[in-house]
């Protein structure tokens, strides 16, 4: 990639961030509309009444564990499965009865599904040839596409002569060559090792922005979803539990499931003792303290709720802080030094274990605390979230 392209892309991302995203605009027409889609396999409900709007140029991640229905939903978009009930509209067109080979959709498979008997160039050209594109045009576009994924020099190789990362890029090139309106990616980075995955993530985002294709990515890896996505849909048991931007999914999970599935979290069970429109006070036996959260919730008095606090938002100290609320006492039970940060497991008097992570600002940071130290754990009132479900 040339440096001018890099600058171009940076400026276009900067421009894009200034605009209000389509999903926040009233009356914006979604590009992909999933309406009350249910898919049953015999008695088993794989996808349960899912409705979802995805907008043009989005990079939407469906995040969920295995068996959550995310792959089934993707296969319905590609046309390999048909919904038991509900509708799927792509660019305003109802996809019911439209065969996979007629949809304006392409898919990148988890196994890559490269044709082993065809060369890299022929694999990429496959889609264009089916469209009846002329020979010289095919050659030109294949060459362009291979250059984009930096495989221009490997066109004559067979797939089994390539490394995992190279095959991943061939699969991507092959699925993009027909300039689909919608690209579906099934665990696109799942087969790559950690380092390669991180590099490829950013490459994928660049390509998506450059081509302006709408991406729907299925993944079980929450880190991958956080880095890639414009929005994330968290799936569990065939249902979309929460749909939000990565930041909101992480900072404002709407349920215990999402809080625990995305990142790690400490949950304290407690009872609402004071419920103001803009704040809640919760008494928690488990935490051994009163917890105060500066956002309102809709709940009944004395309702049992959970307060969620992320490990990195907790401060750990030997000294008592100047706050009585959101302040716990405990004893360090385990320390894990991870280089960039340290992880502490602190046992509260109630028996509850709290996970705290601290960045190692200075070199001796990790040595300030040791096992069985009595410590105070505290956090700001706007760091935690109350979860009613």
């Amino acid at each position, binding site marked *: 990639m040339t440096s001018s392209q890099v600058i171009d892309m940076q400026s276009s991302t900067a421009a894009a961030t200034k605009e209000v995203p389509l999903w926040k605009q009233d009356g914006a027409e979604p590009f992909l509309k999933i309406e009350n889609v249910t898919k049953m396999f015999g008695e088993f409900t794989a996808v349960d009444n899912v409705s979802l709007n995805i907008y043009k140029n989005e990079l939407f991640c469906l995040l969920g564990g295995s068996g959550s229905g995310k792959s089934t939903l993707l296969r319905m978009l590609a046309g390999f499965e048909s919904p038991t009930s509900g509708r799927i509209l792509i660019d305003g067109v109802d996809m019911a009865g439209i065969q*996979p080979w007629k949809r304006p959709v392409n898919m990148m498979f988890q196994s890559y599904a490269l044709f082993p008997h065809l060369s890299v160039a022929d694999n990429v050209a496959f889609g264009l040839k089916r469209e009846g594109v002329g020979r010289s045009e095919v050659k030109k576009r294949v060459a362009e596409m291979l250059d984009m994924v930096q495989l221009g020099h490997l066109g004559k190789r067979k797939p*089994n002569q390539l490394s995992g990362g190279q095959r991943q890029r061939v699969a991507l090139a092959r699925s993009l060559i*027909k300039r689909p309106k919608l690209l579906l990616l099934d665990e696109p980075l799942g087969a790559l090792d950690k380092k390669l995955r991180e590099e490829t993530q950013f490459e994928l985002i660049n390509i998506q922005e450059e081509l302006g294709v709408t991406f729907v990515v299925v993944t079980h890896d929450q880190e991958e979803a956080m880095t890639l996505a414009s929005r994330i849909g968290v799936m569990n048991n065939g249902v979309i539990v929460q749909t939000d931007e990565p930041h909101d999914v992480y900072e404002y999970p709407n349920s215990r499931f999402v809080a625990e599935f995305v990142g790690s979290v400490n949950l304290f069970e407690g009872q609402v003792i004071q419920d103001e429109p803009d704040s809640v006070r919760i008494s928690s036996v488990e935490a051994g303290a009163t917890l105060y959260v500066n956002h309102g919730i809709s709940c009944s008095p004395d309702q049992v709720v959970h307060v969620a606090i992320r490990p990195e938002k907790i401060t750990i100290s030997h000294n008592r802080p100047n706050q009585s609320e959101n302040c716990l006492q405990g004893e360090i039970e385990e320390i894990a030094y991870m280089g960039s940060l340290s992880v502490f497991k602190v046992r509260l008097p109630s028996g509850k274990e709290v996970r705290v992570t601290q960045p190692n600002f200075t070199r001796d940071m990790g040595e300030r605390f040791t096992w069985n130290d009595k410590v105070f754990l505290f956090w700001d009132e706007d760091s935690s979230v109350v979860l009613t479900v």
Partner: protein
Amino acid sequence: MKRRSLFLNFAAAGGFLFLYAPIIALIIYSFNKSKLVTVWGGWSLKWYGELFQNEQIINAALLSFKIAFISASLAVVLGTMAGFVLSRYGPFRGKMILSGWITAPLVMPEVITGLSLLLLFVAMEGLFGWPSGRGTSTIIIAHTTFCMAYVAVVVQARLASMDETLEEAAMDLGAKPSSLFFLVTLPLIAPAIISGWLLSFTLSLDDLVIASFVSGPGNSTLPMVIFSKVRLGVTPEVNALATIMIAIVAIGVIAAMYQMRRQARLLAKPE
């Protein structure tokens, strides 16, 4: 390299000797000068020359090759379709029975296959006049029947190990099911089809029992001619003929194995 024990060497030598000593003896005797099969009279290619003068044997050989070629080709078409159904139809009622029946000819005694086919042909002729009499066409039908089972088994195994998402990927890229078969599925199972064809060809060339049941007068295949000649005493000519057949069969088997190996390499996952 690890030294192998004496026992293993002995076992290997014994096994190979048991398998191949008769064949080697046959090949050596085919170059015998003497007219008596059991007496060695020095090296000669005389009997090969005689063989090619013998019109009966040449005609039988040509007939056998023709039958083998046609029935192998028919068996490949039918066997591939059967293998396809078995691996792609999904679970259906009677799948177990069908797959059992398809492989039955592999284990059925040839005498029974031959007899039952003969009865069928006779009954068919009585009912609607076809096939009229036994001849080349009935042998081809009979050979196709049992060769098809071999092809079905080979193709089914190949399809079962093939990644089905390859077909989905082709559809996703705009290939209709009809063109999908020729663009993706067929090239991928081609090695299995080729080895199935070669296997069928050699099996058909070999067959004596079934052909004896379903052939008519003037339609003797090569194994039938050899068998009838041997009944009158083994001539050195037959040794020469047998040597040539061994060579052809060996080439067929080796080619089939090579195809299998090539296919395994092509589809092997790297790393």
